[in-house]
């Protein structure tokens, strides 16, 4: 289905390295490819240190220029390759055609400027000829859209006087101001309470439909991702390990890591004495094992897993997995 749709972003074989000092480079993301189609939400699921944030920061090259290297890969947005674009041109896209929302709404805002100043700046940087009054109007309209009462008062208040949920809604509003084609959300609701999270997610879905934009939604929360994403990509140790439509992924996970992740989650209304666990913990970047990064925690690992990273295989239509033993894993689960 997705193949007939128009492609918006095409990430091909992306690798990201961080230079620590002259001798050491750590590779945070290795050979990750994915596509985002128009109007869809791609979820990226993974635990801390799996490279999910680095992947989406790299799309806008927000990682520090000096220490970050991209040994391979292309990020095609339309015709242009974002990885090789001059910074000047790229900064027109940042916050313009591609918007981004971060995890901590409190730290993402400047505490010294009012909400209005910060929102209007976003508009006027991308449209230098816009009158102040017009920018003000647009901001008020946006605040209304994100369902916060009393927009004029909000415009003149400082970030500290708003609650976390309100600020995150403002962040969403800010990212929406320039009508982006793609919105990258890096754990946008992790810092919020569940009832507030439900409101924010609902708002995001509503705005997305109205503006027909695409989203990349990064999170570690299985519930949130299944709510938001059309397709989900699971990452582990800097690699993509599985990708499928959301419903299929959660009902029929193929990769042993995805299976473990789903099973280790307590479910409502379920009686178990113990939770199933994935033994061990995510290896640090500097001790990432050779071969499949998951092999030392995997119940199905064989000798080949220690040597080579498995090829991506289309196990079922539109369901990709990178595992030598996914057939075994499926018949066991």
């Amino acid at each position, binding site marked *: 289905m997705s193949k007939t749709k128009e492609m918006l972003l095409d990430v091909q074989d992306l690798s990201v390295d961080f230079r620590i000092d002259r001798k050491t480079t750590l590779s945070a993301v290795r050979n990750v490819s994915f596509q985002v189609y128009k109007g869809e939400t791609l979820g990226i699921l993974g*635990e*801390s240190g799996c490279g999910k944030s680095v992947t989406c920061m790299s799309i806008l090259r927000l990682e520090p220029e000096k220490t970050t290297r991209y040994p391979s890969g292309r990020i095609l947005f339309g015709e242009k390759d974002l990885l090789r674009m001059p910074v000047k041109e790229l900064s027109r896209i940042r916050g313009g055609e591609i918007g981004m929302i971060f995890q901590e709404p409190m730290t993402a805002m400047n505490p010294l400027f009012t909400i209005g100043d910060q929102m209007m700046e976003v508009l006027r940087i991308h449209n230098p000829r816009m009158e102040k009054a017009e920018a003000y109007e647009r901001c008020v309209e946006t605040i209304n859209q994100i369902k916060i009462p009393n927009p004029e008062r909000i415009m003149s208040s400082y970030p500290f006087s708003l*609650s976390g949920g309100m600020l995150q809604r403002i962040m969403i509003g800010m990212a929406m101001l320039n009508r982006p084609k793609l919105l990258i959300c890096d754990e946008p609701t992790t810092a919020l*309470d*569940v*009832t*507030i*999270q*439900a*409101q924010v*997610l*609902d708002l995001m879905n509503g705005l997305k439909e109205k503006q027909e934009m695409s989203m990349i939604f990064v999170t*570690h*929360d*299985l*519930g*949130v*991702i*299944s*709510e938001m994403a059309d397709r989900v990509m699971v990452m582990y140790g800097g690699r993509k390990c599985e990708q499928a439509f959301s*419903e299929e992924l*959660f*009902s029929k996970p193929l990769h042993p890591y995805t299976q*473990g*992740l*789903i099973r*280790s*989650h*307590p*479910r*409502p*209304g*379920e009686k*178990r*004495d*113990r*939770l*199933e*666990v*994935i*033994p061990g*913990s*995510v290896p*640090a970047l500097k001790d990432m094992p050779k071969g499949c990064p998951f092999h030392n925690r995997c119940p199905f690992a064989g000798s080949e897993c220690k040597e080579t990273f498995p090829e991506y295989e289309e196990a079922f239509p539109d369901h990709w997995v990178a595992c030598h033993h996914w057939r075994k894993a499926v018949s066991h689960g």
Partner: protein
Amino acid sequence: MDEREIMKKQVNPYFLETEGLTMHFPAKTDAFGRPISWIHAADGVSFCVPKGKTLGVVGESGCGKSTVGKMLMDIYHPTGGRILYDGVDITNLKGRERRPYVQKMQLVWQDPYSSLDPRMRAGDIIAEGMKNFGLVKSAAERKEKVEHLMEMCGLFPDQAQFYPHQFSGGQRQRICIARALSTNPEFIVCDEAVSALDVSIQAQIINLLKDLQDELSLTYLFISHDLNIVQFISDEIIVMYLGQIVERGTTDKVYGNCAHPYTQALFSATPAFTPEEKKNKKRILLQGDVISPVDPPAGCRFRSRCPYAAERCKEEPQWREVEESHFVRCHLFDEGGKTA
């Protein structure tokens, strides 16, 4: 119905009890430094935990769940109410009289990154409590006990030489648990003990806590905002909203048939991820804002966001029995009806 009666009906015997525990922080002061308004962090919180069981405390940020944990540990001194430990009123015990209870009650914090001293080795962190309470006679005995605790918590004894930064988040939380166990406690408050951990590590720590409970017959107060985890580990649950308990009961009853509109919204807001669970799920989106905890008005504190709010909600709701060992504080149940 009186709150005491309700508790008596629930379970016997209790191990840890609170009666009307209240914590008001001064919010604003006048020119002479006298408080003129108060933040009601906890208002009349009464519960009891039977020995060897787990009481789960659920609620969103600002509902007072951590304040309750801190009052039990004497980090905050309650402005009202009593704490009974095994029948003894420990609320106003100080210094030497309090010490035995300090030893028996321990705390596991949320953030394993900031709750360990970065300049102490893991072994010393675990041994500190034992030394303080004179539980070990010699260095050799201490070393042996530290190693035993580390093994019990799934760490390797030779890691005793390491500093906290050399451990992963999950391992650090294991150190925190080992440290809490080092004084031979009977009661442990777990304040969001797994919230900062990754999903796959969360399960490991929860299993560890359950195993330790069986092994050492520990009693837990498990504070968390994650409903699925609380239902997994707890025998009984209290749901808090703005400093008050709004619903209480055994885990199965509260989860199977949540009564209070807030609890219902809370449950419906937790996203499900398997297709069959998603199908059975109805979303209740709350509108309106949370009432400020500074001198909240009388009556139900949830009424500003409640879809069923009515005129009578301006009066303080009373405890009503929904079913056996399941209680709710909401006017919807005034006539014994189960309308919500």
